[in-house]
């Protein structure tokens, strides 16, 4: 195919992608831009050119091992609803914009740690970007039939593509100074590319399986007779099993910690609930991508069996070999889109890291703190733009000057191993509050050095054909120091071997240092917030503990330098409104300090934000116990506030009900009085009837008022109980006297057979009030025929139980507790309103509780209600 045609296609394709990004940026509120599908698809930036070509290459040479790279994510992603949600919450709450920010903030805005993480990421990812450029260049050469790669840079198409990508990333990646803002243009473009690469890969897979061959069975049959087929397709015993396990673990870590994955999953997340789509849709995407890999690999092995062909290029060579140039072009474009997604997102993520965690905190803080806001935001953006260009160009020259003739997969995996060194600090910090900054640094450095020793040095020796005995005999000829068989461990392949040792030492060092040396109060403060994120998320600014002296004026000055007058003013207004603080306040509190740090974090990274704010703030050390106490107090204050509000609401409801209950008798009184007043011809009987009602209703009002006052006195403890030793039997008999006549009238039997006499200390008037109340309820509800009310006492250990029982219908189960509420009127009442105020049981409960007793209702068998209260026997 002619180079011009391919270049033209590339340019058209890039134009489309640019346009989509531009459109999405303009319509950033559109539903097409903000939905869980775009989000999920953007995560597929995980599938790079490596997936496109490398998986096939690996499958062709080592069988099913390629699956481990996808198996890890597929296993771990369903846990994201919990794990990733936590990470996202913390990141959003603290305006975190990169992985380095996340780790450095967790360990107390540690500037060095942030820089270290940045360096590790750059070292891991730049070669990985080179790899993508290499893939573009090689496939370009294959499809245009160039066999010699361009000699001068200016003749190299890949160079121009790299520059275009840098422009794309720099333009759409730095629309906002605040890097924790979402980049909707880029993400939408990436999502589109994810669709393109998957569709094209499925097309070629389908083509190979069903067009070049007669379906999967046909390929299998032909491939299985090839030499080496058997060994390729098995896991290879225990050794192989370990390798599989470790590779899956490695990819589990990578799917979270690769800078580009952190960028798309955490920073670009618009809503937490999108995760619910991701947990099934993303694994499905990965599965789909892998359906045809093995068939393309086998197909390639069959067709090219006696030729020297790079297995990494099977995907492209198969259609070319069959003279299907159009299909080859599709494959090229698919691989191209996979490569450029990775390059763009990675360079964006790395550039933000470089600027916020390395360049600004170490180089530009002084300058920033002197210049004006517009200059500063421009400088910040420029630092990022230049970083993006530098990263891509360095990656380009890296690919140009080193012979990267290793298979795609192996270099990709090395990146994974390097990135995995961040795992102990990251996950440890997320779940273990003891993990300290020093431990994180030592762990990462140790792990990295071991990776260099066991993987990078041998690889460089190998690929640059340096003659030395280092690999075969170990350092200084010491056997146990052989880089591929450290301490004599022969179980693993080089990558898993390096991963195993580096991570093992990393974890050991991280744990030991953490346990042996406590971090500073600042670290422990953040540790608490990260580990217990749900507890403190609600507190937001309040969760941060800080003691010291600061003035609003100074902090405002710092903010203005970065955000400008208007944004600072707006942000502070919002802050004052949120916490209901007077705008004229001069002394800043912990909340303002933390709020300001967060505001700056998005623009210049957490470490710089901390340094800048600290420069205008006089800070004091506080001990861990103080930190924890203050955190707990804030939490408690929040809770008690809630309680107060709830109590306020209850009080309002109570007042409403009281008003309603008072108005009812007054309505009767007023209406009847008005009638009497206006109507002179009213007959005597009616007049008497009306006047009696007026008297009754007036009594009802005063009873109600007395009860309410009573209840209030008891509830607030204003009334002292008149405690004396009394005979419970006497009190019961006294209480029952007024009911005897009523019992005779209604034909209700009073059963007193089960009363034992005990001497108990209580306020006799009050207890009598309770018993009368229970009795009047019992008389009201007892059976109309053969009614019976029974009072019994029962001494049980250190308390006496007094029960009043009727043989009526009993109480509905859902009402057993509610009847003690104020103004609760049973649903079961007869049509005639009871004489009670609706407060009787509420008052009884209050009385019993102030005697340290309990009162409850239950249904007795076969029917009837039993109300029981207890009095402790040894009170005085």
């Amino acid at each position: 195919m002619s180079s011009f045609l391919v270049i033209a296609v590339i340019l058209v394709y890039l134009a489309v992608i640019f346009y989509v990004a531009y459109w999405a940026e303009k319509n950033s509120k559109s539903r097409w831009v903000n939905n869980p599908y775009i989000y999920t698809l953007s995560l597929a930036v995980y599938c790079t050119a490596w997936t496109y070509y490398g998986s096939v290459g690996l499958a062709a040479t080592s069988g099913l091992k390629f699956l481990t790279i996808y198996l890890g994510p597929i296993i771990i992603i369903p846990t994201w609803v919990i794990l990733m949600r936590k990470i996202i919450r913390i990141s959003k709450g603290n305006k975190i914009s990169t992985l380095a920010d996340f780790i450095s903030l967790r360990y107390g805005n540690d500037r060095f740690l942030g820089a270290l993480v940045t360096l590790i990421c750059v070292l891991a990812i730049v070669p990985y970007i080179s790899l993508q450029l290499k893939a573009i260049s090689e496939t370009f050469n294959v499809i245009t039939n160039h066999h010699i790669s361009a000699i001068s840079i200016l003749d190299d198409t890949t160079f121009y593509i790299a520059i275009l990508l840098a422009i794309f990333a720099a333009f759409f990646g730095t629309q906002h100074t605040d890097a924790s803002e979402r980049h909707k243009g880029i993400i939408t473009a990436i999502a589109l590319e994810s669709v393109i690469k998957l569709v094209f890969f499925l097309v070629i897979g389908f083509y190979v399986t069903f067009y070049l061959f007669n379906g999967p069975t046909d390929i299998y049959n032909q491939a299985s007779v090839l030499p080496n087929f058997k060994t390729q397709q098995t896991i290879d015993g225990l050794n192989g099993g370990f390798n599989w396990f470790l590779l899956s673990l490695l990819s589990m870590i990578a799917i979270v910690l690769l800078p580009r994955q952190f960028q798309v999953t955490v920073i670009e997340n618009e809503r937490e609930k999108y995760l619910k789509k991701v947990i099934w849709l993303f694994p499905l995407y990965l599965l789909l991508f892998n359906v045809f890999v093995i068939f393309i690999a086998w197909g390639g092995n069959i067709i090219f069996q006696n030729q020297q062909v790079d297995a990494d290029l099977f995907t492209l060579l198969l259609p070319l070999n069959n003279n299907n140039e159009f299909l080859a072009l599709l494959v090229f474009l698919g691989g191209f889109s996979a490569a450029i997604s990775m390059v763009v997102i990675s360079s964006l993520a790395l550039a933000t890291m470089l600027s916020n965690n390395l360049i600004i905190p170490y180089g530009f803080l002084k300058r920033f703190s002197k210049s004006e806001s517009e200059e500063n935001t421009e400088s910040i953006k420029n630092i990022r733009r230049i970083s993006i260009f530098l990263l891509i160009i360095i990656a380009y020259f890296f690919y140009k000057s080193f012979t990267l003739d290793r298979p795609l997969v192996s270099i990709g995996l090395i990146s994974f191993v390097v990135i995995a060194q961040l795992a102990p600090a990251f996950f440890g910090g997320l779940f273990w509050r003891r993990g300290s900054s020093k431990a994180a640094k030592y762990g990462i450095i140790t792990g990295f050095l071991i990776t260099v020793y066991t993987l990078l040095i041998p690889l460089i020796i190998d690929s640059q054909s340096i003659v030395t005995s280092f690999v075969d005999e170990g350092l200084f000829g010491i056997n146990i120091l052989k880089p591929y068989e450290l301490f004599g461990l022969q179980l693993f392949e080089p990558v898993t071997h390096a991963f195993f040792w580096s991570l093992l030492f990393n974890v050991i060092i991280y744990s030991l240092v953490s346990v042996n040396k406590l971090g500073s109060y600042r670290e422990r403060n953040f540790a608490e917030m990260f580990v217990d994120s749900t507890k403190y998320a609600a507190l937001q600014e309040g969760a941060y503990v800080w003691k010291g002296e600061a003035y609003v004026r100074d902090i405002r000055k710092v903010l203005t330098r970065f955000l400008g007058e208007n944004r600072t003013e707006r942000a502070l207004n919002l802050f004052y409104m949120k916490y209901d603080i007077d705008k004229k306040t001069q002394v800043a509190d912990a909340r303002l300090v933390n709020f300001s740090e967060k505001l700056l974090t998005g623009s210049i990274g957490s470490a710089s934000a901390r340094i800048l704010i600290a420069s205008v703030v006089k800070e004091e050390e506080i001990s861990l116990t103080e930190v924890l106490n203050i955190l707990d107090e804030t939490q408690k204050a929040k809770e008690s506030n809630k309680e107060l509000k709830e109590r306020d609401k209850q009080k309002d409801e109570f007042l409403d009900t009281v008003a309603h209950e008072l108005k009812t008798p007054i309505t009767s009184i007023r209406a009847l009085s008005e009638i009497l007043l206006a109507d002179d011809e009213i007959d005597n009987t009616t007049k008497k009837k009306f006047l009696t009602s007026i008297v009754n209703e007036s009594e009802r009002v005063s009873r109600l008022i007395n009860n309410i006052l009573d209840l209030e006195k008891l509830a607030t403890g204003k009334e002292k109980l008149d405690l004396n030793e009394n005979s419970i039997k006497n009190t019961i008999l006294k209480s029952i006297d007024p009911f005897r006549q009523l019992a005779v009238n209604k034909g209700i039997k009073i059963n007193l057979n089960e009363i034992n006499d005990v001497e108990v200390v209580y306020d006799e008037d009050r207890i009598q009030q309770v018993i009368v109340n229970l009795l009047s309820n019992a008389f009201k509800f007892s059976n109309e025929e053969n009614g019976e009310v029974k009072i019994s006492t029962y001494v049980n250990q250190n308390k006496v139980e007094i029960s009043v029982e009727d043989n009526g219908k009993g109480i509905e189960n859902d009402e057993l507790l509610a009847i003690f509420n104020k103004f609760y009127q049973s649903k079961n009442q007869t049509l005639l309103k009871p004489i009670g105020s609706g407060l009787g049981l509420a008052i009884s409960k209050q009385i019993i509780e102030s005697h340290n007793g309990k009162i409850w209702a239950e249904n007795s068998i076969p029917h009837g209600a039993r109300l029981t209260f207890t009095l402790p026997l040894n009170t005085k």
Partner: protein
Amino acid sequence: MKKILIVDDEPNIVMSLEYIFKKEDFEVFIARDGAEAIEIVENNIPDIILLDIMMPNVDGYQVLNYLKNSETLNKIKVIFLSAKNKATDIELGLQLGADKYISKPFAVKNLVKEVKELLNKK
């Protein structure tokens, strides 16, 4: 003779209302809760209903709802007569389709005037 239905669970309020409207030459029906009200309405359609809200079992809102959903009954005038007199209560009552909302305690003359006005309105 116009028919009026009084729905309230307070015997003394019922007693006063009964006297007032008999005096004004109404045929008076009495219900002491929502269920009874519905029973009466189904047998004998009144011109106007004075309806309390807070009643046991079936409350005033439910009665009104029942009426508004019936083709034969939805033309009956309804006045809510309730001790609930917060602005939100009144608004809710009117929104549900009551013609008037009078709070308790009420002035007798005023109540009679409102009832008559409502009945004269077409």
